[in-house]
């Protein structure tokens, strides 16, 4: 019994941390911006991600963008709008936008919104990078 309670407490503290934060990191590899999203993407956090990505897209040598959403635990329609906005920027340069590691929740949001029509799903980052012209 004691064990269960302790585990529940641990779980809660992890959840709360995920909820109040969204962590975004990026690196560049041969003209591809590789973005990793962790946490929860909603209206509150979408603006931060948008500004973060757009700042990096000011670099004109970046043509394509690959997103790793392994750590993305939540996304609603605010994320859809944010992703469509980044797609518009990338497609204007003739580049591609890709995503890897979508969980079943993120996958459902992508499917009902038609996001897969503009953002290609890859089986891992290597596949995305190959398709976008690295190697």
């Amino acid at each position, binding site marked *: 019994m004691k064990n269960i309670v302790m585990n529940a407490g641990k779980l809660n503290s992890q959840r709360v941390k995920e909820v109040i934060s969204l962590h975004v990191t990026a690196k560049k590899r041969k003209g591809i911006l590789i973005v990793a999203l962790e946490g929860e993407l909603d*209206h509150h956090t979408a603006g931060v991600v948008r500004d973060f990505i757009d700042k990096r897209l000011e670099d004109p040598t970046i043509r394509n963008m690959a997103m790793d959403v392994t750590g993305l635990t939540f996304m609603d329609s605010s994320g859809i709008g944010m992703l469509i906005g980044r797609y518009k920027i990338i497609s204007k340069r003739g580049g591609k936008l890709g995503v890897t590691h979508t969980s079943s929740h993120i996958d459902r949001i992508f499917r009902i919104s038609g996001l897969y029509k503009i953002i290609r799903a890859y089986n891992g980052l290597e596949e995305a990078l190959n398709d976008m012209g690295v190697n």
Partner: protein
Amino acid sequence: MDKTNEMVLRFLSRSSNESFARVTVAAFVAQNDPTLEEITDIKTAISEAVTNSIIHGYEDGLGYVEIKAVLYPRKLIAWVSDQGKGIENIEKARQPLYTSKPELERSGMGFTVMETFMDEVDVTSTPGQGTIVKLIKHFGSPVDKERETK
């Protein structure tokens, strides 16, 4: 069936309350032993309705958003309401891809997401007075209402 529990949550229309609201409702329904998918469905729908009240209802001014949630043995009914600007044409607002704020990078998919993840979505609104979104979720029902937008 008689209700087993009930709660009311009232908070200011700040975007930081979006996660607070959906996590609170998720914690409240946890006593019904929902699946992880049911919890995520409910969190997503609550997030959509609350975000709409904040962005559209109050247009980033301040007002109160209220969530009332009633639990039954196998069902949740939640009402998300605001006293904001209201919706002129509800039918049009519920259309996939319709948004009154394309300049804010909205996609117009919020109501479609709510309809996909919940069993029932009812919208009542009076322009100038506010909006109530009623959301119903049955627990343990094998619904798969997923659909793709053409």
